[in-house]
Every structure is written in C-alpha cells, then in structure tokens.
C-alpha cells in the first residue's frame, strides 16, 4: 500500500510574477495592456484639448442639417434640401453599387483569365499572361483615369447626335454611347408586372427542381432525361405566356435627345463605367493569379485519373479540378473583394459620388467637421469589409474539405 502525499503547496509570492514561467507572460501582457491604454488615453486627451484650444468640439449635429448640394447619381430620393446624413446614405449606396458590380465583373474576368492561363494553346496562354502582368502592375488610379479620359475624348458628345447627317447615331435606336455615359432603355413597370416577375422567379426554381429530379431519376433508375431544351422551355415559356396574357405590362423607355442631354432610359454615367471597369480589370488580374494557383495546387494525378475514367477536359475542370481548387482560391479571393471595395474610394478622381465623395468630400469641406466625417468613414469601410469577410467565410466553410 502506498500513500500519496500531497505535493507541497507553495504559497504565492510576488516575485513569482517575474521568475515563475507560469505567470511571467501574464505579467508582461498586463504591462503592455496598461501602456497601450495610457497611450490611447494620452492621444484622446490631446485631441480633445487641442480641439478645445481651437474652440472646437466633436459633435455629430451637422448630420441633420441640410446638405445644400446636389448629387448626380441618386439611388434613393435626394435633393439639395436633404440632410448631410441622407447625402452620406446616397454615397454609401453608390459605393455598394460599384463594389458589387466590380466584384462580380472582376470574378468573371479573373476566373476566365486564370483558367485560360493554363490553356494548352500557346497564344491564349501568353495573351492571358500579358493581361495579368499589364493590369496588376499599373496602379489602379492610373487605370481609372485612363479609361475615363479615353471615354471622354473618344466617344461623341450628345450634341453630335443632333440633326440630320449627325456625326454620331444611336446603336439600334436604343443605346446611346456618349462621353457623358451610356444611355440604355429602362424598363417601365406597368400594373401586373409583378405577376410576370414572380412567374419568372418561379420558373427559375422550376428549372432547378427539374434538373434535380432528372439527376435523381438517373441515379435511381438509370434513365437519362434530356437536360438542355426542357430547362429552356421551363425558364421562358410560362413567363412569355403570362406577359402576353396580361397585355404586355412591362414596356421599355427609350432614351431620346431632349434639350442638352438624352432624356429617358437609364443613364449609366461615365464616372461609374470608368471606375467599375478599371476596378474590375485590375482586381481581375489578381484573381486570375489566385485561380491559377488554386488549379495548380490540385495534383496532376487527379486530372489523369479523371481522364482515364473517360471524362472530357471540360468536365474534368468543372467536376474534378475546380471544386478542389476552390478551397485554395476562396480565402485570397476574399481579400481581393475587400481590396476592390476599399479601392472604390478612388472614385473622386473621376467625380463618382461615393461615400468618400459625399461624406468625406463635400460634407467634410462644407461643414469643416473633418474628424467626425473621417471617423464615420472609417466605421463604414470597416463595417462593409467585415460584412464581406463574414459572408465569404460562410461560403468558404460550405465548400471546404469536410472532415468527418
């Protein structure tokens, strides 16, 4: 029989905070924390004191006073009598518009270029390498300015569309490409158009349901149903039928010359196009490299194994390579999306009224509330970046290797 004796309980001594490895790291972390807080406190007090010395204070009251300036691209109702807060909201929406358009387009460019960079065709491969190297090695601000300047200089002004034998004419009488932007027909939603839209949405769900059923039938019974044409029929026929049954509720509003400008239709401004396109091709070049890295991270044996099973190159890419490559591609893709969103603050270079242009530009300047405006701007960009990060992480979790 053995007796267990309790280990001697050392009483805690102050010197152990430094000499005992169990506590030492806590001690230093605590000291660092205190120092950091002191520094923050010093800077904060310094700021407040200096502002007070200049007779100013930190106040967000200006946000509710009238903005007194106009904004050209207004996704929501806004006029010069709206508040500065409203102007900031317009800016936020404009930032989101260009960020979403940019991210989507950059992904398309990036994936296409990334896959083609590995093409067996020498010319295609080199062309894509050329694209990547040219676009990612020139600052995006330069690209924005180049595209904007070229658009302004090359495209005709609305005046040149005027009169008989005009220098310029509209494309298919519906699209006008001018140096003030592109005018395209805009849909006019008449009564009953909601039914048409709902029918179309239901058709999309129907297509997915049909394809799922067909796959299930194939696995269960081995019967192969045609996929292509039934999908198209389900997608379009009900919507078109409903559209005509309800008497064509959706019509198009065509742009037409009126006064100094084109009137009617949808005006996509040159500043938006320049910013959107420049951000998309620039970020697309980075995404292309991510995609290439992701594909090359998948072992060549996978391709060969798939080929030996008789899969065609297209299906090898879609069914074998890309699903595995995505695990490598998505994390850097998130940071590219974040970069694109933050780069959109270069909008002021072409006069696109994003949140940096309204809140951080005109409002800041007219009210002189620099610190408040910049704090709000930082808060906005931080929020939007964390939101993009969160959404993309959810997607990343859904495609990552499931370990059971």
């Amino acid at each position, binding site marked *: 029989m053995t007796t267990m004796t309790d280990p001697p309980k050392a009483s805690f001594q102050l010197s152990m905070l430094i000499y005992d490895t169990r506590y030492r790291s806590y001690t230093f972390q605590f000291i660092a924390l205190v120092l950091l807080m002191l*520094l923050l406190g010093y800077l904060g007090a310094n*700021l407040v004191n200096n502002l007070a010395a*200049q*007779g100013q204070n930190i106040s967000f009251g200006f946000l509710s006073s009238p903005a007194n300036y106009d904004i050209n691209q207004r996704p929501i109702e806004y006029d010069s009598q709206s508040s500065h807060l409203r102007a900031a909201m317009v800016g936020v929406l404009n930032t989101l518009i260009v960020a979403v358009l940019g991210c989507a387009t950059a992904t398309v460019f990036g994936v296409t270029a990334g896959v083609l960079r590995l093409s067996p065709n020498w010319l295609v491969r080199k062309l894509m390498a050329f694209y990547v190297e040219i676009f990612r090695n020139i600052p995006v601000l330069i690209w924005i300015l180049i595209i904007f300047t070229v658009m302004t200089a090359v495209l005709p*002004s609305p005046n040149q569309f005027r009169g008989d034998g005009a220098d310029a004419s509209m494309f298919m009488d519906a699209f006008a490409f001018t140096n003030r932007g592109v005018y395209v027909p805009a849909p006019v939603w008449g009564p009953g158009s909601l039914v048409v839209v709902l029918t179309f949405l239901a058709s999309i769900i129907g297509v997915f349901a049909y394809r799922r059923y067909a796959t299930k039938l194939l696995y269960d019974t081995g019967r192969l149903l045609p996929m292509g044409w039934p999908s198209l029929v389900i997608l379009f026929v009900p919507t078109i039928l409903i559209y005509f049954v309800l008497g064509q509720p959706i019509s198009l509003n065509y742009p037409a010359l009126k*006064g100094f400008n084109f009137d009617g239709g949808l005006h996509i401004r*040159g500043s938006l196009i320049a910013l959107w396109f420049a951000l998309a091709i620039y970020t697309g070049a980075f995404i292309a490299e991510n995609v290439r890295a992701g594909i090359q991270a998948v072992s060549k044996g996978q391709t060969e194994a798939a080929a030996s099973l008789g899969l065609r190159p297209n299906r090898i890419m879609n069914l074998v390579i890309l699903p595995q490559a995505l695990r490598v591609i998505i994390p850097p893709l998130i940071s590219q999306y974040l970069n694109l969103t933050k780069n959109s603050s270069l909008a002021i270079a072409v006069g696109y009224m994003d949140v940096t242009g309204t809140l951080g530009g005109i409002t800041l300047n007219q009210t*002189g509330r620099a610190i408040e405006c910049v704090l709000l701007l930082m808060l906005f960009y*931080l929020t939007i970046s964390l939101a993009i990060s969160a959404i993309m992480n959810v997607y990343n979790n859904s495609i990552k290797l499931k370990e059971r």
Partner: protein
Amino acid sequence: MKKTVFLGALTVAGLAAGASAAATLDDVKARGKLNCGVTTGLVGFAAPDANGVWEGFDVAICRAVAAAVLGDGNAVEFVPTTGKTRFTALASGEIDLLARNTTWTYSRDTDLKFDFVGVNYYDGQGFLVPKSLGVSSAKELDGATVCIQTGTTTELNLADFFRANNISYEPVPIETNAEGQQQYLAGACDTYTTDASGLASTRAAFENPTDHVILPEIISKEPLGPLVRHGDNDWGDIVRWTFYALVAAEEMGITSANIGELSAAAGANPEINRILGTEGELGAMIGLDNEWAKRAIAVGGNYGEIFEKNIGEKTPIGLARGLNAQWTQGGIMYAPPFR
C-alpha cells in the same frame, strides 16, 4: 483592429491639432520662411511660371507678407492646396497664411475658426458656355450638364440658383480646374461654372478663347481674400495691414517705381510718410520695424500694379477692375487710414 484604426486617426488628428500654436510671427521668424497656401495652379492667381517660380495675384500677397515680416519677398514656401485640403492645412498649422481665392463666408469665419483679413478680389460665380450652344442666359440651362469644382462654395450657389429658378441640372463634380477644363472642352459638360475671374483665367488658356462666352448672370457674391487662423490676432493684424498697405499705396500713388524716392526722406503727405516709415512708429505697433510696408510694396508694387500685371486687361486673362477699383475710381477697394 477597430482600436488600431481609431488610434491611427487620433494620432493624426492629435499631431495636426498640436501643431497650431499662438505665436505665428515668432514661428515664421524662427523658420526664416513663410508657409503660404495657394492653389494647385490657376493662371493669373497662382501658378508656377516656366522656371518654376510661383507668380500671380494671390502669390503677390504671400510675397508682400514675407517681405514685411522677413525682409525678403522670396522667403516663401508655397504650399499648393486643393479646395478640399486648404482648410485642414491652415487649421493644422502646416501653412501660416492661405491666399487661395477663398470666399469669405459666415461659417468659415465663425464655425471653422478662421479670420479673413480682407478682400483682395470681389468676385461672383458665372457660367462659361461654348458659343455654339446658343445659350444667352443661365436661366436657359434647364437640363444642362454642369461641370463644377467639388468642395467649393460654387457647389452650394449652383444648387441654390437652379432651385430658385426651378430648373434642373446634372452636376459633374471634378477635383481640379485642369480637369474641369478638359471635361468642358471634350463636351462632357455643357457649361463650366466657377468664379467669373477663374472662368476668364481658364478661357484664356483655351486654343480658341473667342468660341466661348461667359454668361451675363453672376449668381453669387464671392469676396475672395487671404485668411489666417482664428486666435492669433497679432499675426492677423500683420497680414491685414500688409494687404491694406498695398491698397493704400495705390490710392496714395506709391508705386514700385517711385517708392525709393518717396521713402528716402519724409515728404509732404503725412500718410505716405507714416506708411513708408519716415514718420511715426507704426511698425512697432504690430511688432515689426518701421520699413515693413515699404518692403511689402517694393516687392511687387501696389495693389493696382499687382492687378494689372497678373490679371488685368493687358494680360490674357483680361479682367477689368470693376468692383476692384479704388473707391475714388468707382470701385469698393478702400483701405482704412494709416494712423
């Protein structure tokens, strides 16, 4: 992460705010140079010439102040500022004086804590249009695309003007005058609006200036003047009276040509004597020597000479004196008495 970003902002703000101290005169003397904020380039008002030497109507104010304070009209560090950066630059102490055709407004004077020391150019906002547009009045601009420099009072005037006349427009915000010129000439906007003096200056740089016309409507009052930080009244006084010395010099007939002769000995006119320091002790009252005004006038001439040399009718900019003539000539340039 939130904390770090916030910390960075506070550091920048704290440093910027900490730099502004009360005794600007001592700082300038210790530095040996006057930091003067000007535009990034507006021909006639402030632009570097072919040799990189800044010259222009606003630049002359900077040089006069430098001559008065430091005895050398070239002891100026010109800091180009945009419409957006100018106030931060002044408030933070990066510049001692802002001479950048800046409009004197209530909120800038009070809420932004600046002191406008005077008005060196009485201006108003106008519209520049191509003759081919066939417009003769700004009220016919319904639906027009208007290029406008962002971050200026012109933006607010424009919104007010179109709202008051119940007509619509599409603003195209641009950052600098050069960009506005490019957009306007390419036809990306129907009209370009800014202060009438700026329009004249811009038009002067066009290939065919006669194809463009400035519309008769002046839609705002734009008193442009140099400004300093609120709170250092001694420095404000120096800049204010240096400017008025230039204005008074024109009224009294002191020019860069005759200033040597007039300042050699006390003459018949007591006010000229007081300005030039041959009589009385005016210099000591603002903490300078007695010849401060003489140096300020000598560097670029009196107000009228500066006007004619940089933006007057014989220059490509071709501005008439108008409101900016001396009060004795039907204008409103009026220097308080030197006594």
